[in-house]
């Protein structure tokens, strides 16, 4: 039923978007997202999608156009990276608070400055409080799978939240891999139809979007958004299971790799999870009980599952591909550590900031992390809480 073909991450994102065939796509080019929209614009030119493609003058306008289109009842998409996401900032909050399930590939790239075009997660991590669901992808296959699942997740009546499908700039976006792709019919059937029940164009049921919302009701609307995020994990799991039944590739909030009996656990999101898997394989051959816990869903944060998955670990390293300046450690680290606070028996947790601005992170570095973990597990002490992996002193 599926066909395996070679795609870069950007190309497979465009291919998924071709199958999704959104009503509206409004986008502005930015490296390393460019090829996604470029490829998609070819589909538009060839008449292979019926999408209304809006060439806007900035990402602020791209997201604004998506908000307008989605409020009018359209399925709206865009794609961006780094500074482009930063320029949309104002409107991404608005998309989430109007409960418009816009789906957006975010090709992770370091935020300026100094200017850099390579991968880190400073862009999407900065948007972690914006009210968007965030799915992180390990490879090209997951870019495709996450995009196809993003629509039924975001558009679920109990959720109604926009979704970012994050994948690492260049490492995934420009790396070619074999990807199993569903037949168009099957993919479209899985995605289903979108019907905004409060469409601006429904003149029989008029609706106002974006009225002034002051101290009397704003708080209640934020509380609703919290609730939608709390409902999301069940929907992510349900859709991931249905997708698995269709393709054999099952998805949840997290993925674990040799975690069952692991004493030493690395937590990572994005392409580095793949490097960690390769490291785990080597260490397992040496008899080290190493494991990986991969974050697929960072928003909503899978607190319950993380506690459960780490119940047997002795020492845990949390890898963050972004710095949270002024905080004690990276954003994923902070939440993992906080999740474990109430537990009687908890592992030692260490923060590793790595790969900023596209700095390569290889197996030897990750072996060093496991080595640190082994030392910590043995001594029962963390000697250095926050570490910068691969930076020159």
């Amino acid at each position, binding site marked *: 039923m599926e066909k395996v073909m070679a795609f870069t991450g950007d190309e497979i994102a465009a291919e998924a978007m071709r199958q999704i065939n959104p009503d509206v796509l409004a986008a502005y080019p930015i490296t390393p997202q460019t090829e996604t929209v470029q490829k998609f614009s070819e589909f538009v030119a060839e008449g292979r999608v019926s999408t209304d493609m809006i060439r806007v003058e900035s990402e602020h306008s791209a997201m604004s156009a998506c908000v307008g289109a989605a409020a009018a009842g359209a399925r709206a998409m865009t794609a961006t990276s780094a500074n482009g996401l930063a320029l949309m900032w104002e409107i991404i909050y608005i998309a989430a*608070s*109007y*409960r*418009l399930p816009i789906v957006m590939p975010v090709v992770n790239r370091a935020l300026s400055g100094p200017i850099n075009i390579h991968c880190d997660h400073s862009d999407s991590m900065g948007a972690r409080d914006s009210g968007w669901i965030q799915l992180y992808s390990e490879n090209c296959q997951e870019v495709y799978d996450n995009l196809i699942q993003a629509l039924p997740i975001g558009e679920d009546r109990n959720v*109604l939240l926009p979704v970012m499908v994050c994948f690492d700039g260049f490492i995934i976006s420009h790396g070619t891999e074999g990807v199993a792709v569903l037949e168009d019919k099957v993919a479209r059937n899985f995605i289903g139809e979108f019907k905004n029940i*409060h469409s601006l164009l429904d003149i029989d*049921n*008029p*609706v*106002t*979007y*974006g*009225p002034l*919302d002051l101290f*009397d*009701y*704003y708080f*209640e*609307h934020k*509380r*609703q958004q919290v*609730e*939608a995020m709390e409902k999301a994990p069940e929907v992510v799991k349900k859709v991931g299971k249905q997708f698995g039944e269709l393709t054999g590739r099952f998805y949840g909030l997290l993925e674990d790799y040799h975690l069952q009996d692991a004493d030493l656990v690395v937590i990572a999101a994005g392409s580095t999870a793949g490097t960690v898997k390769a490291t785990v394989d080597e260490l397992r051959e040496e008899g080290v009980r190493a494991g990986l816990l991969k974050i697929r869903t960072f928003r909503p944060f899978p607190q319950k599952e993380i506690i459960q998955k780490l119940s047997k670990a002795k020492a845990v390293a949390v890898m963050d591909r972004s710095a949270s300046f002024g905080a004690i450690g990276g954003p994923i680290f902070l939440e993992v550590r906080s999740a474990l606070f109430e537990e009687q028996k908890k592992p030692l947790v260490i923060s590793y900031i790595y790969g900023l601005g596209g700095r390569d992170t290889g197996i030897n570095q990750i072996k060093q992390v496991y080595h640190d973990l082994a030392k910590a597990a043995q001594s029962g002490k963390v000697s250095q809480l926050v570490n910068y992996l691969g930076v020159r002193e």
Partner: protein
Amino acid sequence: MKLKGWKDIPWGGLILEAGNAQKYETGGWRTFRPIWHEDKCKQCLFCWIYCPDGSVIVEDKKVKGFYYEHCKGCGICAQECPFEAITMEEESKFRKDQGGRP
């Protein structure tokens, strides 16, 4: 109006009831009050067309005064009236006897 909890309101701040701005009184925002002088009025209805809040009362195609529950006191009607039939007066004058309240 009794305020509702988060479970009982439409999501996203959407307003599903057309025209319900009528229920939200904004007259309390006013610092100047438009006063209509019937003797000078020629019934041209400029004030009615220009008022951004629909606060000019018109009955049988004739201006009758203002809905003070909604008039925000912007003064556009007085500015646009070609016959100086509307003057803006300080709101406080009208509120003293009500302890300053609308």
